[in-house]
């Protein structure tokens, strides 16, 4: 689960990580109240969406920049009015962009130097890792590729937590000294505590900055959480912003379906995540384009299959459907009956190819064949994928 920058900053502050003073606003009326919380002077205005690349983003009305420096609070108020309610397109949002429903005002800090700091899971070590660099404010992937010697990693032993010597070493390698070093150490410890105690998946501060007066601050913050841990963090679940999620994905989660929208035209309905991913792959392999990832799970019921069909058909790009079920334990005939019922209930007009395999498959295939519906049967994944790709191409 992702949260907005302003929410992340509030959480950071709670754990003792210094951030520039800021205030969020969701309506033009709230601008004045938010701005009164800040001192007069240079102010940043930041569009709050769950996607990176905001600074270089362009609004669909032509206004440039989702993050702006303003010389005064008066100017900040005007700039915020041009962002709020408009749609921002960045390198990460896709062409549709995201509607800005919250703006965040912060004091524009004086920057002496920018750094990079993140905490995430090191999968190879199965332990948390702190990744830091003297090169902040740029894409870390680029730094890793071009100047890997400027990236420092500290793997934390979960039995003991972040050790003092590790912090001292990291702070020294980043080139901090004196009061700055003390402040940086405190910030790193606080950030790690926040990562660990909130079950974060990733905490990324880019840039982390030092100021001419020796302060060390998190100028930006991107925080995501481990979905499996949300049951023990109701206060984090409360930060979820449904406006940032695809309505079809929200609907799917209500039916315990795992759905992710893609931009192709062949919809998939599959049991199992690995099989669902490879169903998308095989469509692509035979020249088609998958419209979604959809895992109905191990025990798909009739009502789930009906819900899945409705969600799939909510995507107007969809021109055909590929159902791929390996019924290991579950009865293929139950699935087949669910498919027939779903097709009747939604009045499906699009080509449908079904590949069933596994337990009681012959009865399942017979149910499909005797339904009187136009359902094409595929023998293997490859056979079925070729059939749906061909049907969609012919219909176009």
């Amino acid at each position, binding site marked *: 689960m992702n949260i907005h920058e302003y929410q992340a900053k509030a959480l950071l502050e709670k754990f003792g990580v210094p951030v520039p003073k800021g205030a969020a606003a969701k309506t033009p009326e709230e601008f004045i109240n938010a701005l009164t919380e800040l001192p007069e002077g240079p102010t940043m205005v930041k569009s709050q969406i769950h996607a990176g690349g905001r600074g270089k983003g362009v609004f669909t009305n032509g206004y440039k920049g989702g993050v702006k420096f303003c010389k005064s609070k008066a100017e900040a108020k005007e700039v915020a009015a041009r962002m709020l309610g408009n749609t921002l397109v960045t390198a990460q949002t896709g062409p549709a962009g995201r509607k800005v429903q919250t703006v965040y005002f912060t004091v524009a800090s004086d920057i002496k130097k920018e750094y990079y700091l993140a905490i995430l899971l090191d999968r*190879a070590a*199965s332990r948390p890792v702190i990744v830091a660099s003297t090169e902040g404010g740029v894409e870390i992937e680029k730094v890793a590729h071009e100047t890997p010697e400027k990236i420092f990693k500290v793997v934390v032993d979960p039995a003991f937590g972040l050790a003092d010597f590790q912090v001292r070493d990291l702070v020294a390698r980043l080139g901090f000294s004196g009061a700055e070093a003390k402040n940086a150490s405190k910030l790193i410890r606080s950030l790690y505590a926040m990562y660990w105690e909130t079950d974060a998946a990733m905490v990324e501060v880019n840039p982390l900055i030092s100021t001419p007066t020796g302060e060390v601050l998190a100028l930006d913050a991107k925080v995501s959480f481990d979905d499996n*841990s949300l049951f023990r963090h109701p206060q984090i679940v409360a930060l979820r912003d449904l406006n940032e999620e695809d309505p079809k994905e929200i609907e799917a989660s209500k039916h315990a379906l795992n759905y992710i929208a*893609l931009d192709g035209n062949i919809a998939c309905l599959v049991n199992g995540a*690995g099989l*669902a*991913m490879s169903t998308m792959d095989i469509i692509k392999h035979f020249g088609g384009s998958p419209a979604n990832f959809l895992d109905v799970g191990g025990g798909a019921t009739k009502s789930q299959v009906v819900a899945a069909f409705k969600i799939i058909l909510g995507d107007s790009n969809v021109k055909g459907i590929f159902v791929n079920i390996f019924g290991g334990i579950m009865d293929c005939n139950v699935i087949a009956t669910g498919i027939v019922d779903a097709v009747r209930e939604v009045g499906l007009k699009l080509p449908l190819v079904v590949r069933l395999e596994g337990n009681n498959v012959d009865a399942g295939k017979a149910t499909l064949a005797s339904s009187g519906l136009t359902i094409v049967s595929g023998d293997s*994944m490859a056979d079925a994928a070729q059939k749906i790709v061909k049907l969609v191409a012919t219909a176009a």
Partner: protein
Amino acid sequence: MAILVTPETRVLVQGITGDFGGRHAKLSLDYGTQVVAGVTPGKGGQFFDHGAHHIPIFNSVADAARATGATVSAIFVPPPFAADAILECADAGLSLAVAITEGIPVKDMVRVKRAIAEKSMRLVGPNCPGVVTPGAGERSQGGCRIGIAPGYIHKKGRVGVVSRSGTLTYEAVYQLTVRGIGQSTCVGIGGDPVNGTSHLDVIKMFNDDPETAGIVMIGEIGGNAEVEAARWIKAHCKKPVAGFIAGSTAPAGRRMGHAGAIVGGAEDTAAAKIAVFTECGIEVAVTPSDMADALVRAAKARGVALS
């Protein structure tokens, strides 16, 4: 000999009184697996009945192991309690715990992995279909089935299968069986980012197992476990290996069902992994329908008989 478990392995089920655990305990009993005990705290002294089977339930893993000689646990307990269930197995001195539970917090698994590192117990999973060593009977009856895989699609034989994904494992097993090629052991290592047993761990066991003649390795986007295994195979593996990687069409940064299946950097994409497979002499299945045929090609090239 197979790996990890044999038809003689004595198995206990943690969470046997739950719907999910109970259903699969029955299927394992029907398959002929030696399910000898159940564990549910607070229900010790009760019994789990299925047909002629009358399985004692214990309050703790230690009690169950002591009373029945069980050495392996199948874990079906809900996510908030699963980490504790794994630690309990390690403390009781079991040799293997297979965690089926999906949705265990990553932090819990980070701590569990650290805690069991110094124990002799191996963990398979979590979020996995389990382990099957097919038996010699009709439709592979009489084998050891731990977890949720459909037993009947297997066939006793000489191919080892290792995979992160459940249904994709069944797909591969089924393809092998319909071609008359049996399996030594099939291991689902699970789709989570932190798991007990890696592709490489299983590949090493298959390489050392005299009854395994060829290997199918199924992976997906995310992490570098498949790459690590592939490089080891190139240097050390004596047996033909076929590989498949799911997720070449997955968009970057999105979690595709499995918590571990998220494309981060350039190294963990499907294309990068497939390139390493090819470089390491692994026969790549071009589509998921090609997994068994890919192994047949690899075996033929090396003059190895798979059945």
